[in-house]
């Protein structure tokens, strides 16, 4: 079977093959005659290589984040515990843990607690406004969304990537 030219999809001619052979010989000669790369060449290339996504799996890449998280935790603890100098360390830490756990979970419980009152308020508001108000606002939201999409598409066309 005749070899194919991958650029054109047509069979290679004898002249094409001959030209390729000459090019190969020329390249071989250039490589053979050129001076060897410096010893640190590989190291320099490796050093200049940008951070690759797969490198996030390397433990060495996480030293700074670990340091920062430790620092933030320590700062938070220090600021919190400073006014509580009279408490024993264990008690102060327990207070910190319990208070922060409560502070982080309280919005959820607050939302659950106020949900019935909000439902009553929503029903009252719905009864007080004109019947089509909700639909009109939904339409306005859809129009805003559509405008955002159109703006995005225009921006994508204008900015070559």
């Amino acid at each position: 079977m005749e070899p194919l030219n991958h650029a054109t999809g047509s069979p290679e001619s004898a002249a094409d093959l001959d030209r390729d052979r000459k090019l190969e010989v020329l390249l071989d000669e250039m490589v053979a005659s050129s001076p060897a790369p410096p010893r640190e060449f590989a190291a320099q290339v490796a050093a200049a290589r940008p951070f690759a996504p797969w490198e996030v799996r390397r433990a060495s890449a996480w030293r700074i984040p670990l340091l920062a998280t430790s620092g933030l935790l320590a700062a938070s603890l220090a600021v919190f515990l400073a006014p509580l100098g009279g408490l024993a360390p264990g008690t102060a830490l327990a207070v910190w843990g319990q208070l922060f756990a409560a502070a982080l979970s309280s919005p959820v419980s607050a939302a659950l607690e106020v949900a019935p009152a909000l439902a009553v308020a929503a029903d009252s508001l719905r009864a007080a406004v004109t019947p089509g108000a909700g639909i009109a606002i939904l339409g306005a939201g859809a129009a805003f969304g559509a405008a955002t999409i159109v703006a995005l598409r225009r921006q994508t066309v204008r900015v070559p990537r």
Partner: protein
Amino acid sequence: MSSAPAHRTLLRGARLLLAASFLSGAAPALAAPQGAEAVMIVPEGTRRPNDVTALGRRVEIRGDVAGAVVGSFGDILVTGRVTGPVVAIGGDVVVAGSGRVEGDVLAVGGAVRFDGAASAARSVGGHVRSLGALEAAFLSELRTSPLAGVTVSPLLLSFRLFLLLLWLAMALLLLRTAPRALGDASTMVSGRLVLLGALGTSAVLTGLLLASGLVLALPARVGLALAAAVVSILYAVKVWGLAALFLAVGRRLLQGARRGGALFGDPAAVTAGLLALGVPSLVPTVGPLFWALVSLVAIGLAVRTLAAREPQSTRTPLAREAA
């Protein structure tokens, strides 16, 4: 970073209702009656057998109301008796004197106050909740804690530092699970902050309008659940956008870092970005405003990333030229 993630979700929900009430009550509010007509009064000695709803007006309950009292963009004063809940959206609730509310008292975008002999324990049968301040829920916990006598500001600062830690943990988790996608998203920041901010604002407005419309167009519980879903989606978009923004800012800051050094790599870049954007948010007054702007840019970045048909890194130079 001004508040906990859950706080933000809650507050967004509050803002949805604010927007709903504003839009639904815009006309009455703009044409707000002046003088005595601007106040809806249930006089002393009278009894209203059903709910009282006011749009853009102050409400004064001096008599009895056998139902709920709901106010939109107006304060509510209770010196009489209300059997249902009292909800003020974009206004304060004041319970004074011998006023009594059997249900919950809720102020969204305002405060709940007690004047004279009134108090939460004596005057309210249900819960008292105010979502007016960013840290309302957190502060309410502080007020009920044994630390009530301790100055609040160091505690708030401590809490905010802890929230920075949570933001960092979330961003690093996203980087660890989707490094390539986050890297692609971060490349879309350069020189387009205004555009991204506008996109973010538009996305937030879209979400608010949709959620408000759902609350007003559907039965309350269904509408509130769907509105909460819309807000949750917005929040997830913000988390992704912020992680990408941290990475973009950090890469810019650490571009001189050399391979092998501690500051080299995307994890260090995310950390640097978080510190660069998060620490200024701790500054009183200006900090929350700064964080709000950062959040809008982040949402815009996430929306733009989601809308991109093809990640940049998969395109070869030839493909870019062809495009």
